[in-house]
């Protein structure tokens, strides 16, 4: 099962390496990882997408809590939440295919953020499966380069993750 963990972390040198090290050491998988400081500059927020059943996620959560610099851990996928990922994708756009790429991008509400005579760079945000669907929808068009930000997420409603 795909899970999204949100981790509040002391914004200190080396703290992130402990989180990543824990996943490697205990043989847990990281699918995506995002990290940036929060409105409180002393705290970073990490979002990790991983795979695992309830027992495994419980163990990961407990082990994360053992790290001295981890302040809070929340399994976002446990309840209603919003998740988004950002993708830039550079696609060959020549001849007849050029219009097709533009049409597909419009359907997915992508924005073309850079244009050359033979390529478009499309920016797309959404849940991860929407980004996957877009790549599939491009079909025969030649994908030149893809970069994805990894998932960021936040719970819906009044629930707040804070120190």
């Amino acid at each position, binding site marked *: 099962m795909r899970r999204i963990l949100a981790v509040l972390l002391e914004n200190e040198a080396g703290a992130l390496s402990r989180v990543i090290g824990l996943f490697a050491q205990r043989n847990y998988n990281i699918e995506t990882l995002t990290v940036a400081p929060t409105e409180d500059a002393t705290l970073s927020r990490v979002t990790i997408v991983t795979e695992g059943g309830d027992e495994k996620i419980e163990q990961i959560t407990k082990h994360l809590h053992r790290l*001295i610099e981890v302040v809070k851990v929340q399994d976002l996928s446990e309840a209603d939440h919003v998740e988004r990922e950002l993708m830039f994708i550079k696609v060959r756009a020549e001849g007849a295919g050029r219009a097709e790429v533009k049409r597909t991008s419009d359907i997915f509400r992508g924005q073309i953020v850079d244009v050359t005579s033979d390529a478009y760079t499309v920016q797309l945000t959404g849940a991860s499966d929407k980004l996957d669907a877009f790549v599939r929808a491009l079909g025969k068009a030649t994908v030149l380069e893809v970069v994805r930000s990894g998932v960021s997420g936040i719970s819906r409603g009044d629930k707040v993750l804070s120190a």
Partner: protein
Amino acid sequence: MTEMLSGAEMLVRALQDEGVEYLFGYPGGAALHIYDALFKQQRVEHILVRHEQAATHMADGYARATGKPGVVLVTSGPGATNAVTGLATAYMDSTPIVVISGQVPTNQIGTDAFQETDMIGVSRPVVKHSFLVKDCAEIPETVKKAFHIATTGRPGPVVIDVPKDTTDPDVTAPYLYPASVSMRSYKPAVKGNARQIRKAAAALVKARRPVIYTGGGVIQGDAWKVLTRIVRRLGFPVTNTLMGLGGVPGDDERFIGMLGMHGTYEANMAMHHADLIMAVGARFDDRVTNNPATFCPDATIIHIDVDPASISKIIAADIPIVGHVRSVLDGLERALDAEFARAPELPDEKAVAAWWNRIRKWRAAYGLDHDLSLDGNGIVLPQQVIQSLYRVTGGDAYVTSDVGQHQMFAAQYYRFPEGRRWINSGGLGTMGFGLPAAMGVQFAYPKATVACVTGEGSFMMNMQELSTCLQYGLPIKIVCVNNQALGMVKQWQDMQYGGRLSQSTYSDSLPDFKTLVEAFGHVGFRVETPGDLHEAMRETFSPALKDKLVFLDAWVDPDEHVYPMAIKGGSMRDMYLDKITTSQQGDYM
């Protein structure tokens, strides 16, 4: 007015303010400012070791015997990496040590400078936490945090990596040692949940085939007294893990021996057939459970531990209780009083008596023989060495051990009266641990009898410390169970690899240990028969040699195996009982 001190002076002053008695260490370039500050004071005694690994084991032995943190000082690069085995040893057994490592100056970090190692990175998987000092002004608070983290919650090793420029004698800052620290991200649980404790008490009094299974948490948590009271009050059988020996007195009638891979027949059988298991400060290690899928099929599991991550990691707990073991057991004792007041007919004495009858039958059939004769001219059995040690010391020694067959025999045959008496590397299984650990214990308790049970293989991994022992006059008694082979490796090769002894023997090239220790300025004996063994053991511990380090080299049968031994992949009842008999699937009784 606050004093202005250099980083090096602050570091040393902070250790003084933390009440540190001994600093086990070895100097080198990046640590020289600190060594200069040490030179100018008397309160912290520096112990000059011969290898940094040994320094960490000494600090560890000191910590295990006293409950106080052990402290180490090493230089950067090789000094730091040599300390890593000791950090990993302390991490696996959750002991509080603080390792201060010198580091190259901040402006050289990352340049592959001379003796540079990324100590924070290298040690990260084997420490509870680590700090890299960025400015000398941080030192007091960093030291305070390091000791706080090392000693609270589930204890563990902490590293403070100190770049040389932060200890520069020409740069000073105001020194004030904080009385306490508070960290928003680190607040270990102390008290257990009262409702869970009541639930545990209610389950205990209703048990018909109970076993109390206790581990190192009882020792680290100084909880053996309350545990013993609870065990006696309930009248239930109790078994200890390798790390938990001394959790109840080894000669208590309720004690059914160690459990697990080389646990007693009765302890493992009782675990398998139990209807209730209360695990206290234990972590269901693979050396205990054998195959977790077939572990104790009928048992309700109560699990008490300070570390939430240990609970339901291997075996799901029915009644989990997170908290400091002593605090939880104190609560449990009161909860049991309430249970007894409400239902005086409990526990079901008839059922428990019938349970004890089964356990006694198991013990009578295949229990350890604690009455080995200690005379005659035959070949010495390794078990006899431990028996002799136990009789001569009257159970009143601190016993450290190395790793291998001798460790298992010591765990099986020496009966410890209380916690903190048995000191061994259980989790990591570090050969070379025994001698330096014994030194740490002897520093902590200069007048106590400290015995190091070792094997000739393990001993040779840290024997350079014999020189340190002479320097500081440590009268350790080293009992070497010399089977002329890497005994545990050989046992596995005998049993599982068709007797192909790949790289486990070296009998033609062993040193004469008697002469060897004499060259280091100590006393040595060598014995080859049981009669001589017991006589030499008496002499080793005699008042005449009270102030000397004595090495007793006891040559034993190289073909003896440790039994019982768990059958791999089976449940706890599946054991080899000797070279011919196995208990598998079928119940003996």
